[in-house]
């Protein structure tokens, strides 16, 4: 796909995503019923869960693109990994700030070192480390390769986070949507959650496409400038 198309597709996806998120916000304020035991604060659920899903999608993409980079050595795969990692950090920050705000009212504390929270924080810091490793090497190619390895190993944490609530004793509630017997959520709550989930996914994919096009174009430009000044390809 050429970069102009990626940019147009990105803008389109992000715009549809924003509209879906605004519709979900309207549903959260005016339509969805208030949860009986937690009350109003449970409405954070409609951004916390989609943010978590988008974070895992983004970091999963980083791992796939990094695997492709390690295998094929294609610079486009590395650019895609960087774009997805940036998105993962942003959506991860949303998840890690909305969760404590919910927990303070529901559990009486902002943070507790229970398995899911600890593993999720570890995942976020792993991908922060991904950027630090990239920048810490004198040879940029070496830095990219090491960072790709970090991304691949870091992604092994994602399935562990998903099963942590059933494997370990945890304050975190069990899954209410992805269950063998089907979702156990009130239909209106499920509709609101799915609208928000769709909006978050489209917004992420849109901004990811835009970020990828910028990253790829700037690398091409840098390579062209290097060729012009030295006469050899980087």
């Amino acid at each position, binding site marked *: 796909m050429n970069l102009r198309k990626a940019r147009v597709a990105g803008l389109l996806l992000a715009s549809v995503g924003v509209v879906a998120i605004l519709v979900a*916000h309207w549903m959260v304020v005016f339509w969805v019923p208030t949860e009986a035991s937690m*009350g*109003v*604060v449970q*409405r*954070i659920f409609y*951004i*916390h869960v989609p*943010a978590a899903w988008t974070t895992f999608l983004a970091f999963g993409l980083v791992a796939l693109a990094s695997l492709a980079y390690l295998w094929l050595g294609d610079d486009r795969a590395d650019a895609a990994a960087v774009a997805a990692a*940036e*998105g993962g950090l*942003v959506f991860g*920050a*949303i998840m890690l*700030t*909305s969760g404590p*705000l*919910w927990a*303070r*009212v529901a559990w009486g504390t902002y943070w507790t070192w229970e398995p899911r929270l600890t593993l999720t924080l570890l995942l976020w810091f792993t991908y922060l480390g991904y950027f630090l490793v990239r920048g810490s090497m004198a040879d940029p190619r070496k830095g990219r390769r090491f960072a790709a390895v970090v991304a691949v190993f870091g992604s092994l944490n994602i399935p562990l986070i998903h099963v942590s609530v059933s494997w370990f004793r945890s304050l975190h509630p069990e899954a209410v949507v992805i269950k063998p017997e089907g979702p156990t959520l009130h239909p209106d709550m499920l509709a609101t959650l799915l609208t928000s989930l769709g909006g978050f996914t489209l*917004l992420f994919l849109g*901004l990811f496409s*835009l*970020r990828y096009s*910028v*990253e790829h*174009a*700037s690398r091409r*430009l840098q390579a062209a400038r290097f060729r012009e000044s030295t006469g050899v390809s980087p």
Partner: protein
Amino acid sequence: MIQRFCVLLPLLPTDPVLLLAQEVGRGALRPYLHVFAAYGLFWVLILFWVWRIARGLKQLQGFHEERHSDAD
């Protein structure tokens, strides 16, 4: 003065500002504040990423214009 206050006393609970103050005192507005903060932070972080991408695009445009002016 006291007599006037006693006359006004039954009207006090209907004053929305006083009712709000009572709610704040009881901490009943805390869940609303947390929901508002969570949704606000969401938009701040998204706009931060959009700003970073827009800045990258602007820099690219700058480089392109610079190269074109050099070529001319």
